[in-house]
């Protein structure tokens, strides 16, 4: 069953490659949160209740509800235009993400006797690289943060792969990362949005005293 969810998760990565609107990105992030909830629930059902409920709450409340709502709020408040404005055409993005999945798959086959299940490894690593690619290829600050969140999801999957003995620390680290990124973004975007009106990475290079 987790394999099914992981395959669907990989499809969301492909969809991320061809999405045009920022709202679609947000919906994909929320959907990834639901998928991570399912994976975490099935994978970690054996650990103690407090820990499990913490992980599940984190995936549902933070990844699925709070962050998408907050991103939507930031978009509305700063009047960010609805288009994602990638540097590359979406066609190339799709090819590159597919190549990322293929190459992580080939990479996972060259590693002998990995401690973790290979499908987790492939999905986590391709999620990481896809996030990195989205950061590198999109124009706006808010899409950078979304790419960062995708990377966080990849790290989360990787930490799920170590299974029932997952330490709380990893989890806490992830939560802190998300919190910090959103918090920073809130301050950052609000300031810049007030001065420059449009939050475009290209314009950051023109900042002067």
């Amino acid at each position, binding site marked *: *069953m987790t*394999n*099914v969810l992981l*395959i*669907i998760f*990989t*499809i969301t990565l*492909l969809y991320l490659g*061809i999405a045009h609107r920022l709202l679609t990105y947000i919906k994909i992030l929320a959907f990834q949160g639901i998928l991570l909830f399912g994976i975490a629930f099935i994978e970690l059902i054996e650990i103690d209740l407090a820990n499990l409920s913490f992980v599940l709450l984190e995936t549902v409340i933070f990844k699925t509800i709070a962050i998408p709502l907050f991103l939507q709020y930031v978009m509305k408040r700063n009047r960010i235009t609805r288009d994602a404005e990638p540097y590359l*055409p*979406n*066609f190339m993005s*799709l*090819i590159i*993400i*597919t190549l990322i*999945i*293929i190459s992580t*798959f080939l990479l*996972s*086959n060259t590693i002998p006797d990995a401690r973790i*299940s*290979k*499908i987790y490894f*492939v999905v986590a690593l391709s999620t990481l690289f896809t996030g990195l690619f989205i950061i590198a290829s999109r124009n706006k600050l808010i899409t950078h943060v979304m790419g960062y969140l995708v990377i966080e999801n990849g790290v989360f999957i990787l930490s799920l792969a170590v299974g029932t003995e997952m330490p709380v620390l990893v989890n806490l680290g992830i939560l802190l990362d998300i919190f910090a990124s959103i918090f920073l973004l809130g301050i950052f975007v609000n300031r810049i949005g007030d001065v420059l009106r449009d939050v475009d990475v290209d314009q950051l290079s023109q900042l002067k005293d």
Partner: protein
Amino acid sequence: MISFILIILMSLIFTGIVIRTKSITSGRKGPGIFQPLKDLARLFKKGSVYSQTTSFIFQLAPSVYLASILMAVLVIPLGQYKGILSFEGDFVFFAYVLGAGKFFSILSAMDTGSSFEGMGASREALFSMFAEPAFFLLMGSFALLTGYTSFQQIFHSLHFGSSVSYVLMVLATYVLVMIALIENSRMPIDDPKTHLELTMVHEVMVLDNSGFDLGMILYGTPLKLAMYGGLIANLFMGDFPLVLTIPIFLGLQIAFAVTVGIIESFMARFRMNHNAQYILTLSSVSLLILLGVLLILGQFN
């Protein structure tokens, strides 16, 4: 043999069902199910007019096109019952015999010397080119999963085992439905109702055909759709007896026709320059099917 007869029967009412669904969803009274058939009969009674600038290829192409589709229908099985032709690697034959038909229809479009038709031909070739890796990855994964290379053996030995195989079936159905729509230039890729030559794909290629030739080309569309519908239906049959397979076949075909009608009623056409990426998505999804197959086989866990 049975599958051939069933597909021919289904092709007679396929477009009718699509048009009926469209008229019901848009609240019109609409034509009856047999109206496309009557139109075809009218066309088949007429003679053809050939432009003086065209060569023999233009006259040959519609026959080759229809014949290629009929050849492809020959290899479609029905569950455990073989098609008329069945041999090792017949899915490659299936893909390339359709490719040969498409090649001739492209040639005949270029033969007329019309710039519109050349444009349509170029688009059709491009979209088919992008759809082809998806089909081969899909059938290749199934061949890998079952260890056989002919349609009948593949579909006969496909069965639902683990939870992963269910998701593979859903993905495979999606990919096949989308390939069927692309190959027939139906709604999300191309609008068969459009009247502007600049935005047409398939229709613009047959602007110069008339009478009997046009009838053959128009009959190709429901035949191809019913053929792909038969392929999709085969995914769900396994080794059921004939009493079960025929209702499953007809039910899935009608469901497929209704789906096409609903898609055409409620979806807008993709922008022409975005089509390529949507078609390439199918290849990526097929690649995931391949990974899933490797997962089931335990090559990778």
